[in-house]
């Protein structure tokens, strides 16, 4: 496999052909914020937090789905990118009803961590306060759409790793919701194997173990990549 050399933030990088900018950056210890990306499942470039500047490109590119190109010049931490990332996080908070103080994921939440990382001390947009449902009809798990950021990690992990595709997305724009089976209550979704991979994958408190109380949803998200790696090596 051919090697590609290029620079990120003026640092000379060597990566394998076909690797993404995100993979190459992380291998070299350069951090790029992500939210929808999850090791072990495919990338969709949905959250736009990993946008980077590429010299000669008019548009910003999501690092998680952009392959490296010989001699490209990438910047990951410019003033413009910092402003956009903060704005993206603020919009996520404004779009649904995130109340960290009483959330099951408080202290263990990727959205909360990102808000701190991008320096979000307040939200400059009006909160939308949408009316969102909570579904705890499943005997083990629950989903609170108030806390969902539509990253679709649950959809991908259910489809690609567990192989059942219980989760999907219905509706468009602000009405979009992750759904189980044909938009049935989760407890009635016959395809669900109750494996819990979506619970592991969720970055916020949206999907949780039933009965969890404030701050109790700690999860080991690396388990997904571990399962995938173990499977691939055996095959």
């Amino acid at each position, binding site marked *: 496999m051919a090697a590609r050399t290029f620079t990120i933030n003026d640092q000379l990088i060597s990566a394998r052909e076909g690797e993404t900018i995100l993979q190459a950056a992380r291998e070299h210890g350069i951090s790029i914020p992500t939210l929808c990306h999850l090791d072990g499942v495919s990338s969709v470039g949905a959250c736009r937090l990993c946008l980077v500047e590429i010299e000669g490109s008019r548009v910003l590119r999501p690092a998680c789905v952009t392959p490296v190109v010989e001699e490209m010049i990438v910047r990951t931490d410019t003033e413009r990118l910092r402003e956009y990332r903060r704005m993206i996080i603020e919009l996520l908070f404004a779009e649904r009803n995130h109340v960290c*103080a*009483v959330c*099951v994921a408080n202290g263990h939440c990727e959205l909360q961590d990102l808000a701190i990382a991008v320096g979000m001390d307040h939200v400059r947009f009006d909160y939308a306060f949408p009316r969102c*449902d*909570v579904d*705890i*009809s499943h*005997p083990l798990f*629950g989903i609170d759409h108030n806390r969902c950021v539509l990253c679709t990690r649950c959809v991908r992990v259910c489809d690609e790793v567990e192989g059942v595709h219980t989760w999907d997305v219905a509706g468009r724009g602000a009405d979009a919701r992750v759904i189980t089976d044909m938009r049935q209550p989760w*407890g009635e979704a016959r395809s669900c194997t109750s494996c819990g991979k979506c619970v592991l994958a969720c970055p916020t408190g949206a999907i949780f173990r*039933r*009965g*969890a*109380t*404030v*701050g*109790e949803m700690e999860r080991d998200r690396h388990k997904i990549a571990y399962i995938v790696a173990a499977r691939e090596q055996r095959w």
Partner: protein
Amino acid sequence: MTRQILIDPVTRIEGHAKISIHLDDNGDVQEARLHVTEFRGFERFCEGRPFWEMPGITARICGICPVSHLLASAKAGDALLSVTIPPAAEKLRRLMNLGQIVQSHALSFFHLSAPDLLLGFDSDPARRNVFGLMTADPMFARAGIRLRQFGQDIIAMLGGSKIHPAWAVPGGVRSAPTAAQRADIAQRLPEARATVLDALRRFKTLLDTHHDEAATFGNFPSLFLGLVGPHGEWEHYDGHLRVVDSGGAIVADQVEPSRYRDIIAEAVEPWSYLKMPYYRARGYPAGMYRVGPLARLNICTRIGTLLADAELGEMRQRAGGIATSSFYYHYARLVEILAALERISLLLDDPDIDSLRLRAEAGVNQFEGIGVSEAPRGTLFHHYMVDAHGLIQSVNLIIATGHNNLAMNRTIAQIARHYVKGDRISEGALNRVEAGIRAYDPCLSCSTHAAGTMPLVVTLIAADGTVLDEVRR
């Protein structure tokens, strides 16, 4: 003029109050009203939440007594799960509630009321606060602040944080303290005990010099309501409801807390957001009752620990039996701190709390759950209805400040009759009216923390409706 607010539903409050004093044609005080003008909406926005989250959410009702809501909510959750929680969990919850009683009572007495009591009701209002107390008697003020810290540290030891710990959960508690943490608390007990005994000694001398206040600060017959143990002993976490009248006769006893609606009804007045609960059998407003430290000591047969029982005996002797003056709330608070310290000492040595079994697990087994415990300010009810999956359908909260609503109004009227003369409100009279409310330690005074800055407006209204005087803090 009084303002009429017509917002439905009338529900929880904390923080802002207004008092109007109405005069008759002769310029004498006819009636006085405490208007609670803040709307919180907890009962509404909790609808639709999984009930497991309720302790964490309702703890946010108050920053001074989050533990009370945490425990009542967790107990309502226990009822929904239909479980008996592990013994260690119950004892640890009790330990936290005792820590809460110590810190909240210490705050009420030392930070909020001691400036009135020790510096004088008519002293300079600029210095009549906890800072003035520090200047006048630094050792006493310091000891009081450390006593509150002691209670707070018990809460932090168990729950991980002093304020809003999400530690008690439906089915039990999340964690137990280490032996080292327990030892640290235990070695601080003697200092705490010395502080409260000193405060008791001082309060008793004050009683001898404050006959006027004791006679007019809410001194009237009323019922008293609270939880008692199986033999009528002092309770703070579990037990059954007892109602006692001012003659000491037991009116209702061993009432299952989940049947509270059999004995308590709630009236609504258009001039306040705070409901007016009353004892159902006596009707409204004759069924006025008081809750909190004074009520708990008036209804119990005994406390059950040595020092506290001795102090209870002396208090009853001084009051001539049942204490009917709300001025005695301060006294009762100090006796309860002592009782709490003695029980904390016993619980810290209890081998049961070493158990690793802290949380009972179950699904939703009841659609209705009622949790009752004694908050520092009085009996607290959390009443939830859930659907088959455990989502909250309705919430009813009855909070101590609400129980005391009728009595607080009566107290204000009594103080106003005694101290308000003519068409002006003097500073000393204003302060006594405030202090009358402060005796109940309602959430509206503690939400602002600092004595003398209670967000209070007192309006003096003539018979024809004209406003004669208005004083603001």
